[in-house]
């Protein structure tokens, strides 16, 4: 059977994430540890989008809304309480609640296709405008000022649950981030293989048919949407815990499009691709920004255009294709006469 669920590839990928999580701190220097932790939390954000887009076919142009709400929820609660456990929980819960409301409004209202994308974008932009206009000291939540454009800074890092002030070291945070990334990846990959996941995939393929088989696509989409929002919220919390800062730009078009472009670059429908692409592109943007090349936008733009030329299907599918081609080539050289037997007859 050829279900996109648990297979050798996804287990290997999970295993390598776990190896990085556990082995990374002893190999990398502190800066790399901090940098990769931040990268990994954005990578986590993109996994949820890759899931809801690749499996269910929902293109959310406002994925940053969930990420941003998670980020703000974490910042506000961790400052107000001086403890991060509840803040992380709230960062998962708050975007989920928004996703339930928004998803009910959209899916049960039969808004589809790009129209749904634009509504999610609008939600994100409204949050962006709103957060920007909260500079006045009267805008406080739990006595934490929202800070407007300047955002909220000096957000405390994660602490061991229940031990107030017992902060995780950067190395422990790094391990935690990568383990969470691995866990979420594995969970989503597992979900894809389950009965629910397979029914979800059928929504993307043919919503009407799915409906006529007695499944409720509105419900399935809502479930997927909320899952992706919860993951994005967790990602926002981790990102804020890593960088110590959150501002309204988490809601802007740039943030949303980054998530989308990483998912595309990784290859539609692959979760590992989205993760790999997000690491690659973040590293690239950061590298170009310090390397004093001509002009960062120009170089980055050119790289992306070339990238589309070279790997039009995205990173992981292109690499898989290459590997398949290579192995076929190798097999052909080994046992050339049997090739004809491989061709598939067209009758059932």
């Amino acid at each position, binding site marked *: 059977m050829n279900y996109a669920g648990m297979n050798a590839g996804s287990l290997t990928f999970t295993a390598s994430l776990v190896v990085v999580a556990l082995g990374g701190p002893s190999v990398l220097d502190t800066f790399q540890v901090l940098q990769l932790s931040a990268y990994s939390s954005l990578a986590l954000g993109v996994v949820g989008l890759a899931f809801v887009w690749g499996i269910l076919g929902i293109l959310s142009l406002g994925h940053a809304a969930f990420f941003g709400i998670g980020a703000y929820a974490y910042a506000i609660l961790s400052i107000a309480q001086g403890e991060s456990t509840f803040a992380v929980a709230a960062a998962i819960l708050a975007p989920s609640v928004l996703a339930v409301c928004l998803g009910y409004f959209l899916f049960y209202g039969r808004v589809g296709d790009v*129209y749904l994308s634009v509504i999610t974008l*609008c939600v994100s*932009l409204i949050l962006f405008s709103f957060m920007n206009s909260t500079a006045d000291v009267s805008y406080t939540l739990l006595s934490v000022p929202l800070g407007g454009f300047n955002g909220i800074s000096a957000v405390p890092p994660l602490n061991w649950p229940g031990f107030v002030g017992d902060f995780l070291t950067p190395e422990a945070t790094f391990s935690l981030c990568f383990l969470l990334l691995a866990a979420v990846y594995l969970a989503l990959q597992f979900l894809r293989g389950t009965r629910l996941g397979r029914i979800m995939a059928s929504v993307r393929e043919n919503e009407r048919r799915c409906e006529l088989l007695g499944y409720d696509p509105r419900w399935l989409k809502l479930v997927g949407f909320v899952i992706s929002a919860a993951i994005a919220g967790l990602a926002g919390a981790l990102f804020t815990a890593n960088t110590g800062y959150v501002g309204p730009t988490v809601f802007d078009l740039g943030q949303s499009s980054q998530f989308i472009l990483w998912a595309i670059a990784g290859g*539609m429908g692959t979760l590992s691709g989205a993760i790999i692409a997000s690491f690659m592109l973040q590293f690239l943007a950061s590298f170009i920004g310090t390397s004093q090349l001509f002009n960062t936008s120009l170089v980055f733009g050119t790289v992306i255009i070339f*990238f589309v030329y070279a790997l039009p299907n995205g990173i992981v599918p292109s690499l898989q294709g290459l590997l398949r081609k290579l192995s076929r080539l190798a097999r052909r050289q080994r046992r050339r006469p049997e090739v004809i037997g491989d061709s598939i007859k067209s009758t059932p």
Partner: protein
Amino acid sequence: MDQVLVTAIAIATGIATLVLISLGLAVIFGMMRIINFAHGEFIMLGAYATVLSTNAGMNLWIAMLVIAPAFVALVGLGCERLLIRRYYGNLTTTMLLTWGLSLFLVGSVTALFGNTTRGIAAPLGSVTFGNYSVSVYQLFLIAFAALLVLGAALFLTRTRFGLIARGTMQNPAMASTLGIDPGRVYAATFAVGAGLSGLAGGLLAPVSGVLPNMGASYVAKAFVTVIAGGSSVLVGTTGAAFMFGPIEAIVSLISTPVIGQASLLAAAILLLRLMPMGLSAGFRRST
């Protein structure tokens, strides 16, 4: 009385600006289903073409109305032939591609001209209504946007190319069986869309800050307008502009601009909830 008039002009300007910045995107998105992330940069290129050729001694009106659209149409054609053409029908790849293109264009313009370019002033002076004075150029923009919509409508319905374009977008396979080369129609349509964006840039050059990054401030609003408008390029986009322009202007006037902007977006959400296929689909259903 004069206050009502000035408010009306402000609202009309809002509508005209939305129409101008959205039309090019509407043609490219509405007809070809390409989410063009470089739309804002096409507007920027139009503004630059206007400013640079005016600074080089060109007549402002020629620069604005001829050079800007022609130049950006050419750039658009180049992009279409070299890049977009290979990926028609692939929404995601074209998104990635046009994002790259957008960064590339901003980077190139910055590298070539720096991030400070001498602008040009709005021509035509001002007129006074009672206690208020209003830019004549603003009135020109309103009139021009109206003419542009009218012209585009005539072009799409009355000319051979317009009909062919609409037919091809509706059903490329059918069009090609009729002996029309869809590739050429796509290329021409993309160029027309880019040209319209360039024209918008040219027209806005005297009333906006001409900088390499200026496109970013238009792109989200243009998207919302076009997509809320729905599949009918002209009716939908103009209808959406007529809805959002006044909402933003009036709410900004009676409360704050942030709420004005938020209410525009909220109106878009509500509109799409009530008419899930966009405004023009709603029109069609009710008639």
